[in-house]
């Protein structure tokens, strides 16, 4: 257990260090959510007048949606690091050391989560600047960050598992876009559930992206329904554990192919 934690720490640092050395990547990952906020905020501004939005500003409604969308898309790319490492022979080298298989997984999840948290905080600040207010205060922000970490863990695990199975960039990008787009747009990220068609509302009950959006938005509201929040966080936690376990198992499939 100690080795797992220590090795995970080393891999987390490696990921963060590599990210910090690509300033262009950092800038893009912060500018992109700003573009979504401005674009969707202006484009759909008047949907907040529909029933189901509770009469608040659309920017305030949009902030948790953009946070979650950003996380889903970034985490979907997590497996790219594995594909790079495979191509460079780094993964094979690491697999001949005593490093724990689980540590490769936990390490990438941890640094993805760090970057997700930074992105989320940046989006909160941008939202404030655009006139959003967060009635739920610090507790609401904390719940959103927890949802970010859990959703990142789930989607990064999935992306890592796909990376180990498909082993090419093109297949990984294709598969992750194929999942991320529909899951995001059938969630309540941009549209109030009451204003969406019935089948989408039904589908969102089993959509992890919606669990994260709903938990965050509820916690950021003036009078949160904490039971609904905790329930969704628990589902996210369970999902990320299952996917993390399966992704670690995917190393076996990879090693069979070596």
């Amino acid at each position, binding site marked *: 257990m100690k080795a797992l934690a220590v*090795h995970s720490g080393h891999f987390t640092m490696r990921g963060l260090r590599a990210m910090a050395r690509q300033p262009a990547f950092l800038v893009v990952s912060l500018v992109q959510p700003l573009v979504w906020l401005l674009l969707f905020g202006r484009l759909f501004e008047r949907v907040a007048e529909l029933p189901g939005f509770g009469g608040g500003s659309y920017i305030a409604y949009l902030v948790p949606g953009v946070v979650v969308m950003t996380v889903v898309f970034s985490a979907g790319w997590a497996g790219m690091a594995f594909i790079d490492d495979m191509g460079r022979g780094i993964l*094979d080298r690491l697999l001949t050391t005593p490093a724990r298989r689980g540590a490769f997984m936990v390490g990438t999840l941890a640094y993805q989560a760090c970057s997700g948290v930074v992105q989320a905080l940046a989006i909160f600040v941008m939202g404030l600047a655009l006139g959003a207010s967060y009635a739920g205060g610090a507790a609401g922000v904390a719940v959103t960050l927890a949802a970010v970490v859990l959703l990142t863990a789930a989607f990064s695990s999935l992306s890592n598992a796909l990376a180990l199975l498909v082993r090419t960039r093109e297949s990984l990008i294709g598969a992750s876009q194929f999942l991320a787009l529909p899951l995001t747009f059938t969630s309540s990220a941009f549209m109030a559930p009451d204003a969406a068609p019935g089948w989408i509302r039904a589908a969102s009950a089993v959509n992890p992206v919606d669990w994260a959006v709903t938990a965050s938005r509820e916690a950021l509201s003036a009078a949160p329904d904490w039971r609904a929040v905790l329930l969704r966080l628990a589902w996210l936690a369970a999902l990320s554990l299952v996917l993390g376990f399966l992704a670690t198992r995917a190393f076996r499939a990879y090693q069979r192919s070596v």
Partner: protein
Amino acid sequence: MSSRAVQVRDLVKRYGKVTAVDGLSFEVPAGTVFGLLGPNGAGKSTTVKILTTLARPDAGSALVAGEDVLRHPGRVRRAIGCVTQKVSVDPMATGRENLLLQGALYGMPRRELRSRADELLARFGLAEAAGRPARTYSGGMQRRLDVAMGLVHRPRVLFLDEPTTGLDPEARADLWTEIARLAAHEGLTILLTTHYLDEADRLAARLAIVDRGRVVAEGSPDELKSELRGDAVHVDLDGTGSVEAALAAIARVGAVRDVVAAGRALHTRADDGASAVPHVLAALDAAGVRVASVRVSRPSLDDVYLRHTGRTFGEASAPGHAREEVAA
């Protein structure tokens, strides 16, 4: 640990219908450099993958540093250092960071690890570049860092899989010197795979020649060469005459034996090469075959390979041929 650092018995590995390793056996005495020599596709890298716990064999057994690779892969991993065919340094990390991460994965104490990293950086001529990301290194520097990473935790057995492939002659000579120095270092066993005859000849105390997933000959380079009595006589035919006619003509010359054709080159052996040449030329002339050149040489590893596989090394290493071999 026994006096055998690596023991491989009847190893088999299949990928689908392709048999990459087909009943391979050899032993490596502790503290020596052992070479696995063979053309691309002969099964050398697959063997190394099995010995370094990366791949599982379909049959057979392997002990590394006295531990079974299937039963105790964790113990094997602690005992080995591994330099894979492809340079596998992290391009975004500096040279020193690469070494520190590698050592940390073996649980080396921080202080010891730092001094070990500095020592290796100095030894491999990377001290000045230690703080730069590895992506800014030349190919030779990356390879040296790669080897240093395989050594950071003081392994008992070091695997070097085609260590000088892709290096320029100067970088290659540097690395040879360093590997020879490592071998002199007490206790370290090195298993080297290579498809360069001169590399095996220069570095390996003992070697196994691998062909189509099997060991076809084993011994020290000198032993292997001295098994071939006499000299090698190579005849290059010009573009016109029939190779069959030439083969038939040479076969009738009493002074030579073991005639093999590779393209328009004929390879044969003679107890005394110089005195056999006139007979060979006379026989070819009588058969109406024109000769472009004749060469007499002391036995080389290429001749050893030819003797055991019926093909010259260059022929077996040609890209088209290697692919055919993998598919076979």
